[in-house]
């Protein structure tokens, strides 16, 4: 395609010049506009509520640790976060990295199955059933005492991603479970395992410290965790519906009620609170389903089961599941509040649960939290 007819040079130049000038003008404006990036900014920020922050506003040194340790070579101590009393970084050759954390959680004198499955999921392993648990455990000494459990999980390499390895030691004393975790590059963790075991042996606990520091530094608007010798100062207030009899709560439970039916059959209501998300709604729902003899569900089906409902100052969902064959029914409410999750469960014979469902939901709705 040939070029168009060319006007004489001078006329063309005059026509083009204004455009050229305009162009240059635009460019200069843009450049100037973009140049003010590197200056000091002053702005207002809202106060940060505790869940957003990783730690308290108290300076690091003033927190009194309840546990002392002897730091192995190659481990560097890092500032601990809200839930952790100890955090260390371990580096190996090249880019290998591992992290060691110490997390105490109160009141978990019960089983490890959910935690084990959660840790297994972290390194990409499928969950196990309760029956298989015993063969995964090694015995280990913590703080000079035997009888603690050590789990060693290596991720599956089938998907060709990097292999992680997780060592977890669980130590229980005085109503508190201490979790010592080492997670990182598989080869490095394997090499560090003896050092980890040695570290566990040399850990010492301060006497007379029934509460881990987390209770002392609990965020102001979250209820303090139950269990231990703390009594009921963190317990919410509720109105017990008619016909419910309060029972002694079992391990891990904040409260327990039974609702017998005069016509026979019974149902039980339990209240449990756990920090964080306690393994996630899906894992807990599947555990409950297993308890009444239903098959587990996947994430997609879970969404269909959950119904959100109104609870003041918190997020809540409830669900209702029935096992036809065994004629058992379970109504549960999961309330996320602050840094904790409250599980309210109504389980028992199908008919009785049906009768108590409305009272149960009302009970959950009217609970007042906070001390």
């Amino acid at each position, binding site marked *: *395609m040939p*070029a*168009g007819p*060319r*006007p004489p*040079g*001078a006329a*063309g*130049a005059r*026509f*083009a*010049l204004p*455009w*050229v000038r305009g*162009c240059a003008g635009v*460019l200069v404006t*843009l*450049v100037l*506009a*973009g*140049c003010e990036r*590197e200056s*000091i*900014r*002053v*702005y*207002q*920020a*809202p*106060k940060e509520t505790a*869940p*957003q*922050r*990783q*730690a*308290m*506003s*108290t*300076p*690091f*040194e003033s927190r009194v640790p309840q546990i002392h340790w002897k*730091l192995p*070579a*190659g*481990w*560097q*101590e*890092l*500032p601990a*976060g809200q839930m952790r009393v100890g955090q260390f970084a371990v*580096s190996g050759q090249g880019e290998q990295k591992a992290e060691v954390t110490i997390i105490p959680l109160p009141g978990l004198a019960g089983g490890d199955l959910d935690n084990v499955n959660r840790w297994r999921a*972290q390194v990409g392993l499928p969950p196990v059933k309760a029956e298989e648990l015993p063969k995964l455990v090694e015995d280990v000494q913590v703080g000079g005492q035997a009888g603690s459990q050590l789990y060693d999980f290596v991720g599956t390499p089938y*998907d060709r*991603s990097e292999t992680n390895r997780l060592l977890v030691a669980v130590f229980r004393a005085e109503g508190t479970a201490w979790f010592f975790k080492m997670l990182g590059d598989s080869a490095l963790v394997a090499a560090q395992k003896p050092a980890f075991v040695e570290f566990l042996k040399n850990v010492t606990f301060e006497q007379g410290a029934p509460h881990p520091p987390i209770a002392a530094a609990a965020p102001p608007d979250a209820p303090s965790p139950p269990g231990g010798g703390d009594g009921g100062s963190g317990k919410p207030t509720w109105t017990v519906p008619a016909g419910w009899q309060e029972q002694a709560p079992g391990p891990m439970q904040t409260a327990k009620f039974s609702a017998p039916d005069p016509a026979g059959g019974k149902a039980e209501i339990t209240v449990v609170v756990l920090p964080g*998300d306690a393994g*996630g709604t899906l894992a807990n729902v599947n555990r409950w389903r297993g308890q009444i003899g239903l098959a587990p569900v996947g*994430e*997609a089906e879970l969404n269909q089961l959950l119904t959100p409902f109104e609870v003041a100052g918190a*997020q809540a969902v409830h669900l209702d599941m029935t096992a036809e064959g065994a004629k058992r029914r379970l109504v549960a409410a999961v309330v*996320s509040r602050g840094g904790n999750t409250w599980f309210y469960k109504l389980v028992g014979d199908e008919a009785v649960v049906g009768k108590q469902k409305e009272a149960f939901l009302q009970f959950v709705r009217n609970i007042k939290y906070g001390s």
Partner: protein
Amino acid sequence: MGLKHLVRVLCSLRLTVVCLALGMILVFVGTLAQVEIGIYAAQAKYFRSFFVYWTPPGTTLNLPIMPGGYLIGGVLLVNLVAAHAKRFGLARNKTGLLLVHAGLILLLVGQLATDLLQVESAMRISEGEARQYSEDQRFSELAIIDTTAADRDQVVAIPESLLARKQDIRHPNLPFAVRVHQYWVNSTNVPHGGAAGAVRATEGLGKRVQFAEAAPTARMDMRNMPTAYVEFLPASGSLGTWLVSDWIDTPQTFTHDKRTYQVALRLARYYKPFSLQLLKFSHDKYMGTEIPKNFSSRVRLQHPETREDREVLIYMNNPLRYGGETFYQAGYDEKDPRVTILQVVRNPGWLTPYFSCSLVGAGLLIQFLTHLVGFVKRRTE
């Protein structure tokens, strides 16, 4: 005489070809360079510069060896405008060409505007959490926060580029000067018992913890973790030398003159007048694989002043456009399945490529069809 000659060169087709060829070479070399120095450094060196410099080994000279992106793009833009104005003006039978050139001009200008004005950041939210700010993904700021007031904090944020100058920093909102004793672009943890550096902290976390300088990283999946030692100097005396680092999650606190302050070196934050609360993050993978099938975040948008409170679903290829910014579903945390990562982009020039594409597409189509019709007519004669 000289001006006429210059204008003639500016309008010439030869200049276009030369610029395009130089542009091609630049893009090719810049792409290869990414392998060594990483995408950001390559962009800055080749595409966001007027010249590409080279330092001969053994010297400290910075020789410009070829024109950079801005220069080539600028000359091309001028050439385009000038050539079109001179040769075609607004002739009717050159409509196709006019559209093409107009579209290209719009594209170049729009991209330049984007380059200069775009701000990208990310929001990392856990389920249930509400966030009111997004964080830069590469650059940090030294935030000095006045937490005395009960309702709001006042933040003075010093970008790390100012820290790098290692000069004293003063600001009307700060009752003390900030002296930078040490600043490292990147740092690593120091193994326990490692050698101490020359500068020691006299206050705060730095008394217990140390870091070591590390080479800046060029990898896309890691970022630099800057560390610095700063001293706060009010009118008289000193508030101590503090260790600040991106590694430290917790702000350190001190008081001065009956006010409490916190200091932290953290990713630069961009606060917004509204908050996003993550209600639910869904991340499905194809069964039996690690291939992600979909991501979506259901968030609650709350703006206290306008009383807006609604739920929005953000998922791949479907962002939220609000408040002059756009929120994209960018990623997730491999270790925590309840965390979503949203990419936040402020780009006033985002519409220019859409218009440009339509213009150029239409123009090329008109040109092409005109030729095709003519060709077919001739062949079938």
